[in-house]
């Protein structure tokens, strides 16, 4: 279910309401996107974002002018031009034409049957027969009428043709192209049979004879385009081949995907492992290349087309993997390369699981191999796609976002210098939004900050910075992101923003531990313990996942669950913070104010969580004593930085022997199991994962 070509989709929309409905259910994940093509949609969303920001912008600072648009708008206009240089069809060597025998089996019969479509087809068939009968009878009875009818149809057809051309200006490119081909190849249209494919494969695969290759490629092309131009008017002329049955279809696709790369490499004499673009560029002037070029191009085009048509994740993953193998060939076709990036980014962002990762591998390879030209494009496209997809995060979708984030960071890490420029621009925008929020405290600005998009963007850069912190040029980015995070924490102090607060502290902890700088978070953490929620109702309350929300609904606040969450999260975060500095010489001072507050809190907290707090207090006190004892033994002063740095390094390196390290590890284990439990409890995560695989077909209409 759910594998539809473009024309087929159009048709289904018109006639197959029930099927469509079912599909819509599955598509719920992506239904927000318009059908105007992926790039447009992504652009649109970014545009929306910037527009939104500008709307808030009271001082009239032109954010759009300074940031995203100027930096991140590479022109995508060239894509439209690609469609015109169509040379997908190859002239064939007639000598090895395989004359198809008449194996015209009943096509309907070899279908498994039982599908809704099939049933419907049969019904229509019956009705058609009935009506036809009637018409014939009428015609017989009234010869005058048949004449009248003929003239009438003629007039109608003329009219329809007119409509066809005027109506579909959007797709005229494609239509015209296929029309032209149709008229050219009308006479050549032949039925592609299984045996023909087999023989061609044999010729090409075993005898290394390229004479059959064009036919094979044409057949492949037909298979890839199958179902796309199937309106009745142009049906017969859709391609030079019409495909006999599903077996044929499978055969040709499988063979081509599996072998094409090897065949081309073998013909061109490129080793299988070589993946430098220079290899192709060097070949450019050789006669061999010249003869093979159209065939390579046809293969690549067809495969890209296939990627747009197919929605099944396995087929997609397979085609992507095969395409990745022959990625060097793209260096000869820049326009195809751009299209490849577009498709890959789209699949990366929308496809789930393996498709996403396969697509990302392509993006990564492209960025690596064509780094000089394509790195920025890849970066921008992926960033845009990420931003566009991080608007809404549902429980199950969270993992996918994390995957997107991680892979984006990985992409960025390929060229830190280039990507840090982009990061700077993006973060400046974040900072601007934040400052507006701080200054005006307007509701819109606040909402803008307290959104998934904003937090995901921070998250993205936090990961990027902490992954590449060894690079000195990132120091100012580090400072900026910390300030932004602090600002966010400062702006949302209330208990309803607990998830956001926890996130900010996690980020700060993460940055601190990766960069080694000191970021005070104790007060931020302890604030969560002192939320004034009023009287707790004592009810356990509904389960809610802290990680899948930013703002909690009001009713949550009074539940015991919320209090538990507050305390446990605070303890975890505080432990991380203390754990980082547990061997530092100033640990006793670092812990002293938190200890005062924790003790106070310990007296007032609810019974069943008191022991957890108590344990933390004890552990911290123990460590304070430990450090103090060690400290009393040393002779150096605070201004002796070097000695301070080496203080307790031996113990630290010695492994987790110190009591606090053990405590830290146990808390981390508990935290992990707790979050696991939380995720399992929540329904819907499984479902969301499934829907993640289903793509909005409309989006991909325009990609090609």
């Amino acid at each position, binding site marked *: *279910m759910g*594998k539809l070509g473009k024309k*087929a989709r159009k048709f*289904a929309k018109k*006639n197959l309401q029930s099927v469509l409905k079912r599909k819509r259910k599955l598509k719920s994940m992506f239904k927000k996107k318009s059908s105007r093509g992926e790039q447009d949609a992504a652009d649109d969303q970014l545009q929306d974002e910037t527009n939104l920001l500008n709307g808030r912008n009271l001082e009239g600072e032109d954010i759009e002018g300074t940031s995203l648009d100027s930096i991140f708008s590479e022109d995508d206009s060239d894509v439209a031009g690609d469609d015109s240089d169509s040379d997908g069809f190859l002239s064939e060597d007639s000598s090895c034409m395989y004359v198809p025998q008449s194996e015209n089996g009943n096509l309907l019969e070899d*279908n498994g049957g039982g*599908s809704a*479509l*099939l049933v*419907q*087809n049969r019904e*229509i068939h019956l009705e*058609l027969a009935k*009506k036809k009968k009637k*018409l014939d009878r009428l015609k017989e009875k009234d010869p*005058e*009428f048949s004449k*009248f*009818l003929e003239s009438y149809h003629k007039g109608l057809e003329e009219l329809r043709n007119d409509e066809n051309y005027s109506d579909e200006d959007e797709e005229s490119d494609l239509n015209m192209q296929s029309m032209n081909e149709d008229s050219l190849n009308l006479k050549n249209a032949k039925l592609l049979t299984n045996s023909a494919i087999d023989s061609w494969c044999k010729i090409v695969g075993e005898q290394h004879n390229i004479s059959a290759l064009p036919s094979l490629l044409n057949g492949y092309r037909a298979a890839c385009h199958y179902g796309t131009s199937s309106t*009745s008017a142009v049906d017969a002329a859709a391609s030079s081949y019409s495909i006999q049955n*599903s077996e044929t*279809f*499978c055969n040709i696709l*499988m063979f081509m995907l599996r072998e094409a790369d090897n065949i081309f490499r073998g013909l061109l004499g490129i080793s299988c492992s070589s993946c430098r673009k220079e290899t192709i560029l060097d070949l450019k002037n050789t006669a061999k290349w010249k003869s093979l070029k159209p065939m390579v191009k046809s293969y690549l085009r067809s495969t890209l087309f296939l990627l747009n048509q197919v929605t099944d994740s*396995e*087929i997609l993953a397979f085609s992507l993997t095969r395409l990745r193998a022959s990625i060097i060939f793209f260096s000869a076709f820049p326009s195809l390369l751009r299209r490849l990036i577009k498709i890959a980014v789209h699949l990366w962002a929308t496809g789930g699981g393996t498709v996403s*990762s396969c697509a990302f591998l392509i993006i990564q390879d492209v960025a690596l191999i064509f780094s000089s030209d394509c790195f920025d494009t890849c970066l921008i496209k992926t960033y845009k796609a990420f931003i566009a997809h991080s608007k809404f995060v549902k429980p199950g979708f969270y993992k996918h976002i994390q995957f997107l984030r*991680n*892979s984006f960071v*990985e992409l960025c890490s390929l060229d830190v210098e280039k990507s840090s420029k982009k990061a700077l621009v993006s973060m400046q925008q974040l900072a601007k939004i934040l*400052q507006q929020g*701080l200054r005006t405290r307007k509701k819109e600005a606040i909402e803008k900050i307290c959104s998934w998009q904003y937090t995901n963007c921070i998250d993205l850069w936090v990961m990027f910075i902490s*992954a590449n912190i060894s690079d000195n040029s990132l120091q*100012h*980015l580090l400072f900026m992101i910390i*300030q932004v995070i*602090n*600002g966010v924490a400062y702006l949302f*102090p209330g208990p309803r923003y607990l998830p956001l607060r926890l996130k900010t502290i996690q980020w700060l902890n993460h940055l601190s*531990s*990766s*960069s*080694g*700088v*000191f*970021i005070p978070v104790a*007060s931020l953490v302890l604030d969560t313990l*002192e939320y004034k929620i009023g009287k707790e109702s004592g009810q356990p309350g509904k389960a809610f996942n802290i990680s899948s929300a930013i703002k909690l609904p009001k009713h949550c606040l009074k539940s015991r669950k919320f209090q538990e969450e507050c305390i446990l999260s605070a303890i975890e975060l505080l432990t991380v913070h203390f754990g*980082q*500095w547990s061997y530092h010489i*100033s640990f006793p*001072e670092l812990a*002293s104010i938190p200890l*005062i*507050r924790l003790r*106070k809190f310990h007296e007032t907290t609810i019974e069943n969580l008191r022991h957890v707090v108590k344990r933390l207090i004890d552990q911290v006190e123990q460590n304070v004593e430990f450090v103090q004892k060690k*400290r009393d033994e040393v002779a150096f*002063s*605070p201004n002796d*930085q070097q000695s301070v740095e080496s203080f307790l390094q031996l113990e630290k390196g010695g492994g987790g022997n110190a009591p606090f390290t053990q405590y830290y590890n146990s808390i981390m284990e508990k935290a992990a199991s707790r979050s696991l439990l939380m995720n399992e409890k929540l329904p819907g995560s499984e479902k969301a994962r499934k829907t993640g695989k289903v793509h909005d077909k409309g989006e991909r209409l325009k990609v090609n």
Partner: protein
Amino acid sequence: MGMMGKERGMGKKKKRQKIILPPELPPEIPEDEVEVSDEDLQFFDENRDYAGFVSTLDTHSITRRRQAEKQKEESALQVDPVDALPVKTLDGELYYRTAPKKPKDSENAADKNEADGEDGNEGVDKSIVKLTKAERRAKLKKSKKEAKKQGKELDKTEDVQQTPQAAVLAEVKEDLTAEETFESKKRKLAELGMALLADPEANIKTLKEMLQISKDDDQAIVKLALLSLLAVFKDIIPGYRIRLPTEKELEMTVSKEVKKKRYYESTLLSTYKAYLQKLMALERQASFQHVVVRCICTLLDAVPHFNFRESLLAAVIKNISSSDDVVRKLCCATVKSLFTDDGKHGGEATVEAVQLIADHVKAHDCQLHPDSIEVFMYLTFDEDLGRPENPNEDNKVKNKKNKKRKNHGESGELQERDRKKNRQELVTKMREEVNADFRAASFAPDVKERRRMQSEALSAVFETYFRILKHSMRKISVRSEENGSSLPGASGNHPLLVPCLIGLGKFSHLIDLDFMGDLMNCLRKLACGSSNSDGSCNKLLTVSERLRCCIVAFKVMRNNLEALNVDLQEFFVQLYNLIIEYRPGRDQGEVLAEALKIMLCDDRQHDMQKAAAFIKRLATFSLCFGCAESMAALVTLKHLLQKNVKCRHLLENDAGGGSVLGSIVKYQPYASDPGQSGALASVLWELNLLSKHYHPAVSTMASNVSGMSAGHNQVYLAKVSPQQAFADLSLEHESFINPKNIVMKSNHKRKRGSGSSGAASINPTPDTATPIDEDGLKKKLSEHFTLLHDIKENERLRGELDRVTLSLQVYKEHKNQKKREHASKPKKNTEKTAS
């Protein structure tokens, strides 16, 4: 168009006059006295036909009318030119209906207008441009002169005119619909107002009429009337207070001028009174509140010297803590302007206002909006005023004593020389009286008077402040009796405390020394935040409020040159503990910074134990909070270290530093008394961690401080105050967008933390080498194919079906056509059954 209308209107009037008027009365004004405007001349030229008439006409009133019309057009009322005509006649009649008893005035008005026309000032302009007092006075003089000359002549003519016009009026009135009534009322208001503004002397009577309109049933009209009256009163109220003549004075024969003046003044005053009464009555109605308060505030602001100020003030103060933001802001602004602009009313209003506010606070048991006390901040007290003569000016008790003594002595003297100087006394008495009158009139109170007023105002202010303090104290004691069963209160419990404390800080130099002890006790208790010994659960005052208490106590002491020997130690203890109670976001960091500045940086005492304790605490503090707070603390810390050389031992881990140690040998981080903390025994290890701080400014500062050595005494002092440091780094102000602002330490190579992970470790890429399940793939592909095929087939079938269906339809059409062409055939029936 406008001109046409005017001409028409004029023509009508002329016609009417033609009929009604008895033989013309040639004006007795000598030709040279009449100033003819250009416009008049032009008009005269254009209407030669009427020339004969015009010469006999009441030219002045006509000119006035033209101006009035113009005014009306320029006023914001939208007048439909079509509607204008009947209304105009109505207006004309109204004018004549009210005028007859004072025809002189109307005549004068016209004359005066023309007289003023000399300097190019048309009536229109005058109505917009406010006349200065001098101008108005000049006008009055002129009009009086002319009134004498032109006397009684016109009286008769107007009397004759009245009756027929009244009849016409009644007729017209019937025709007016409700809407027109509204319009006409509006216009009438405008007309009347304009007339009054143009010549208050002449049209003073119309005031009453306007007042009458304000009693209308229509709320909109009432509002308009109130506002128009406001504009009029604002403009015509004289710059002095009107004193109505006593009976004795009334009996005396006076000149006509005086009579007229008296009439004018009494009318003005009585209408004003009635207007105010109306306002006060309407103030209670919610729908009128905004308008009324606006009127009252504007009046009080504009004419605080005039009669009935008391009632205005009372109304303003009553609304000063209104829950309605608009009303409250208006009232506060008015009181502020009263306080800042003393010259308008000689300071009397200030005193009255302050006293009223004090009473208000008392009456409401300190539960008011903070704004109502905040206005005190705009008071200015002249310190030099009383000092040379009476140094204890604020000290009421002493003052009184002095006065008593003086009086006593004087009376003794008088008794002795009573008779001898009897006559002389009388003379001086007279002189004093005259002087008093003059003073009353001239608004220039002498020094003594001003001193009296100032001290009254001050005492009222402080009375209020102390009341608020006591109230906050009482609350605390009540609360602690309740054993804190209710929720710990936020600032909402003591809404007036913060402005009160700020005010005390500002006026601390004026506080009577006698009250000092009491005040300090109060502040001490408030700073503790609880009267109980266990301060843990009794946070009745917020940290900011308590910090403010400390600040005020220090300000008070400093401003009185620390003349009092009050022990401030306890405030230090409070601050020491408040530092760790501070929560960013909840409490105001600015206040903390101010407290650090005033209590630690500016403190002249040198208690080493205490200084060391604060140094240690501040360092610890800066490890927990944001960069702004950290910076403020570090600046203070540095300051303390610079001042207290011996405290620099804290910077060194010196086992032999025992010489400076106090009684406590080990540092007690959790002690609540700075003196008992034994901080001298500690080492400032915090600086090490702080030098790793993410904020470059903080880390630089920390390394700076740790670089200070005990050896040589650096004399330089930090230039930045804690407040400045706080403001610089607070998130609202700091610009962290532009990375150029941040100077990174280039040689500072950060160590990679253990948690840091290379790019490889976060590789999300899943298994790339999954063996591809070809069979599965084939199946999927064939499914894909089948689906596509089915769709294709479906489409084809549908197309065909559509075509056939269409053909069938076409056949029907065809048949119908045929049916129309030929007669019906028997075939038809069979067809029908088939279909």
